């Protein structure tokens, strides 16, 4: 089972994402932003970083990368797709997910170990968790405040499409403490915190993030 990890110029977490995918028992395949070629992978991760420098709106340029055309088509066809941090921003810019990520409400870059509650385990990336399970994984970004209009928020809540919420104080002003959401089909997930940095006790605060990557393995084996 092959999981593609996209590298844009300015991507930072591609190596950790590939390591997490490998750790979960899948084969990580590097995908290049400028090649419209998915190398027959079964799922794709858009990792964190500052793609193309993010000097415009975060993710606004990346959505036009040649590899994204193929990814958008495949995701619309049901391929599991996970966007982490900058990857989540790219998914919103590409309209695969609703809403937008804006500056943290206190306008500071945040870096900390964050407690989350998994609120939907019916997606391709969260099936290994229990609903209500609390996990701790790193949160590190300056533009992680999830915003959308009231109708979209009502739809996300009504359809159970909120995948994870921040537990405790709202770290960045996200509406309804949203840390991650999914599309209607449940194959596309965007998540602001970083599960790929928490896959073993040696390198992460916990190993709580690993289940995102084992989930996708289960989703494809089924």
């Amino acid at each position, binding site marked *: 089972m092959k999981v593609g990890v996209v590298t844009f*110029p*300015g991507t930072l*977490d591609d190596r950790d994402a590939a390591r997490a995918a490998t750790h979960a028992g899948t084969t990580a395949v590097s995908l290049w932003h*400028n090649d419209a070629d998915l190398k027959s992978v079964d799922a794709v991760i858009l990792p964190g970083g*500052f793609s193309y*420098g993010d000097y415009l709106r975060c993710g606004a340029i990346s959505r036009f990368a040649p590899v994204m055309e193929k990814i958008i088509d495949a995701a619309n066809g049901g391929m599991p797709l996970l966007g982490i941090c900058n990857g989540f921003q790219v998914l919103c810019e590409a309209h695969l997910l609703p809403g937008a990520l804006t500056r943290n409400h206190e306008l500071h*870059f945040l*870096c900390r170990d964050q407690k989350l509650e998994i609120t939907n385990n019916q997606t391709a990336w969260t099936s290994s968790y229990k609903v209500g399970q609390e996990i701790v994984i790193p949160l590190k970004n300056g533009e992680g405040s999830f915003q959308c209009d009231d109708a979209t928020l009502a739809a996300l809540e009504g359809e159970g499409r909120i995948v994870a919420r921040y537990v405790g104080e709202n770290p960045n002003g996200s509406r309804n403490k949203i840390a991650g959401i999914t599309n209607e089909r449940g194959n596309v997930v965007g998540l602001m915190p970083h599960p790929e940095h928490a896959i073993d006790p040696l390198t992460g605060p916990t190993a709580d993030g690993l289940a995102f990557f084992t989930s996708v393995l289960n989703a494809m084996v089924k």
Partner: protein
Amino acid sequence: MALDTVAIAQANPDTNQPFAELGLKGDEYARIKEILGRRPTSSELAMYSVMWSEHCSYKSSKVHLKQFGEKAVKTDALLVGIGENAGVVDVGQGYAVTFKIESHNHPSFIEPYQGAATGIGGIVRDILTMGARPIAVMDPLRFGPADAPDTRRVLPGIIAGVGGYGNCLGLPNIGGEVVFDETYIGNPLVNALCVGVMKHSDIKLAKAAGAGNLVVLYGAKTGGDGIGGVSVLASETFDATGPAKRPAVQVGDPFVEKVLIECSLEIFAEDLVVGIQDLGGAGLSCATSELASGGSGGMKVELDRVPLRDATLSPEEILMSESQERMCAIVEPKHIERFLEICKKWDVTVTVIGEVTDGERLEITWHGELIVDVPPRTVAHEGPVYNRPLAKPKYVDRVNAEVVNVPRPETAAQIKETVLKLAQPQTWQINLGLHLNMIVMFREIPFNHSQMILEWCVLTRKQIWELQSQPMPTLIGHI
């Protein structure tokens, strides 16, 4: 200004040259003429002035700093020692770490954000230049008192510059120090440390060996930023009696640096370079003369081939430009095609600007005219060395006797206790002249705590002022 060539310099020996304005003393200018056997061209004068500045040549501190090399315990673990871009230490199993710390004080005083940001950028390129992947940064900082107006001016920008540049490279800041003291009013110290990891076999050195090998400039285009920054900004503060000089701080682009890191590591992985040097202080003047000195000495450079952001730059300015995010590599002709391919993949501008020769001189041309013809060692390594007078300040013994020893705090409660202890009136008296002197290693302390510490600094400062019944100065805000 008309082009000043070697031929013109020979024909017009008595032309007046602005050596003093460029920071050179009369005897230093005389020495350049002695080395060359003629007056320098304006391009040569630019190179010597910038390379012989205190900042680049360490002419006043060299006699002291070289003791680190001479007195160090000899060990096989030291794979690369003093003289290269950074030291390399064996850590076993074929792996090595390289790390280096460097100050970027005056640029950060002039323009806090860019000064601090390019401090990080420069130190990261030094580590990259050794052949290592940079993995983390640290930042020991010194500011004036927390409530001094100038601290309020520089601190937020410096913190944001260090954080912003490092974040965009994906490098965690794993620790630092902050000290507030009157000594640093108008002269904040901004130190940046970077650590990198590599295999022994990956070590790269700054040398241009092998006649016929190509000199390749890659990374950002050369612009007008930081021209004269090295000599004008960093050097004259020792005896600054003249008029204030125009700021010339470099501007960084961390995105270009991140791409440069990945591009360089891919090039290194395929073993495509003979030698490599980053461009930082003194730009091309430094990189070309140091690379040539590190090899047999001979190098030819066609300066007009350097890609420019500003087409109006003169050759002197191109030689002195401190535009960031540039590297200079020595590449065997058989590897150049692959080298160019990797740069193209990463969208990195790359240009062959010259070649290594079997001579002993660094020759630089501008549209075919020879404008620099120097022995490179005289530029890079054989600058003036001064033995300045030494005297131990009277306060040193007194201050050493007054050190307040507190155990290193590790939890939030311990940090609070330590801060309050340091701020007590008796400590305050002991630390006369030190408003609030506090050093806390941030390693192992979560981010939120470091913010708490800064808030407590302000609080305890307030308590001190209340204790002393003095009017309360304006406090810095949330930092």
